[in-house]
């Protein structure tokens, strides 16, 4: 017995019987997005996801030409950039989209932070988000080496030396990361495997968890919109919020296309393990604050090696970000609740200042 459904066609009904479209539709209709003066910040999560999808697509395209060995990596990208039609564009989009994705991610992180979206029951949403940031930075770090150029080579030498300063396990970790004692072709192959297989597999799981939790708990209302009339205002996710989200994606795509076309990514000189580090060498902007910190720390502070202290400092900041939902609870006393806001402001100030210094201080003085 077939019932006529004026809203849906035959195909929809056929599919519904098999995969249950009705439930999905019901779920989509149920989802509401809070409306308040900070609603705009909600768009950065979706924007990060959009840029991630671009990364997956362009990454797959790059795989078709890239060769992961010290003898061929640089040449294969040179070929891609000069011979392959639109090869330069695909690589440029991949590199720029990575930067924009991490930028959108930082905004998403800090907006969630200041809106206190991490509070119960969303602790795991926050922690999985922190994990995703770590994974994105790992993507950035491993991908940076793949062109096998001078900058990449030294960035990787320094970057893999950093875990090496950790007491006891350091040298082992360094060897594990490098696939040997030094940064060589073995490191390149290893980073390639991490970049295109291991990290994507882990991200699929963590991102799946993150998105599931966002669906389960809905978007969080900031404390300022928890009471009074504003506690009730919301808009349907589908289609109202989704359409607005798409406008955000379109803006991101516009910025991305302009950057990729007008500032195409360069390739630089091929890596040479027997050349000095080039003057003015810098990491990507999202590692700049860490880089500048290591540059400014003296050799020894109170008898401890400066770099070790720096690395421990980064670890403590990361740990504080992870545990913040357990410190700043709804029921916690006032000073503890304010702690997170103060910590966030200091952290942003520090990151911006050190990044600014990194770009403006003379490289030779």
């Amino acid at each position, binding site marked *: 017995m077939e019932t006529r459904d004026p809203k849906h066609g035959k195909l929809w009904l056929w599919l519904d019987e098999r995969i249950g479209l009705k439930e999905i539709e019901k779920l989509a209709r149920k989802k509401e997005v809070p409306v308040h003066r900070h609603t705009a910040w909600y768009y950065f999560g979706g924007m990060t996801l959009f840029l991630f999808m671009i990364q997956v697509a362009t990454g797959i395209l790059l795989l078709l030409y890239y060769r992961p060995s010290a003898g061929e990596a640089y040449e294969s990208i040179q070929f891609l950039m000069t011979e392959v039609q639109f090869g330069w564009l695909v690589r440029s989009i991949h590199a720029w989209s990575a930067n924009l994705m991490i930028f959108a991610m930082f905004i998403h992180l800090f907006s969630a932070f200041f809106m206190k979206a991490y509070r119960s029951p969303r602790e795991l949403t926050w922690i999985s988000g922190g994990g995703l940031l770590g994974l994105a930075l790992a993507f950035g770090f491993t991908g940076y080496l793949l062109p096998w150029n001078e900058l990449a080579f*030294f960035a990787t*030498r*320094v970057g893999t*030396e*950093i875990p*090496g300063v950790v007491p006891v396990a350091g040298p082992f970790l360094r*060897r*594990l990361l*490098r*696939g*040997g*004692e*030094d940064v060589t072709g*073995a490191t390149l192959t290893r980073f390639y495997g991490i970049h295109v297989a291991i990290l994507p597999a882990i991200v699929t799981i963590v991102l799946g968890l993150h998105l599931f939790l966002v669906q389960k708990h809905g978007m969080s209302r900031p404390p300022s919109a928890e009471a009074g009339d504003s506690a009730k205002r919301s808009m349907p996710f589908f289609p109202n919020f989704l359409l607005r989200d798409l406008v955000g994606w379109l803006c991101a795509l516009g910025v991305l296309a302009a950057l990729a076309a007008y500032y195409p990514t360069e390739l630089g000189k091929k890596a040479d*393990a*027997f*050349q*000095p*580090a*080039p*003057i*003015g*060498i810098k990491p990507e902007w999202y590692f700049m604050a860490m*880089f500048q910190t*290591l*540059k*400014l*720390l*003296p*050799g*020894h502070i109170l008898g401890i*090696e*400066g*770099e070790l202290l720096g690395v421990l400092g980064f670890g403590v900041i990361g740990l504080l970000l992870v545990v913040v939902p357990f410190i700043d609870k709804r029921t916690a006393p006032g000073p503890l609740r304010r702690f997170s806001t103060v910590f966030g402001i200091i952290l942003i100030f520090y990151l911006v200042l050190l990044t600014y210094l990194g770009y403006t201080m003379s*490289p*030779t*003085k």
Partner: protein
Amino acid sequence: MAKDVEFPARDESRRKFLNWFLGTTTGAFIFSVLYPVSRYLIPPKVEESTARTVTLPVKPQEVKPNSGQIFRFGSQPAILINTPAGELKAFSAVCTHLACIVQYRSDINHIWCACHNGHFDLNGKNIEGPPPKPLEEYAVNVRGDQVVVSKRG
């Protein structure tokens, strides 16, 4: 609906044993997978270059005063410097801070690391910036037309 059956104590201990057996088997299985994988991930030790002496592919008169150049010392980079006083010196070129490769700055007569702005003097001593230790110095001998660099000690 079937009524709950009360098991005698003997069966409870059988259940305990089966749970223990299942648990340890699962544990042993996971271990037998993880152990080879973790060993696989650790790169095998490659024979380190034991070179203690290297003859450079340059003649002593080719190295200009107040200049430096990188050369291979085994598998590692090293730097040969002709000081403003005309003395040949050699050091490991791996910065003691975070392992970048150093260079000679003729404008300030320092060995310098571009990565984090570390300075060393012409004895390899760390004098400014983040490097915590001096560079390892090698002995330089000029034998006729050849520059021979060797490890000390």
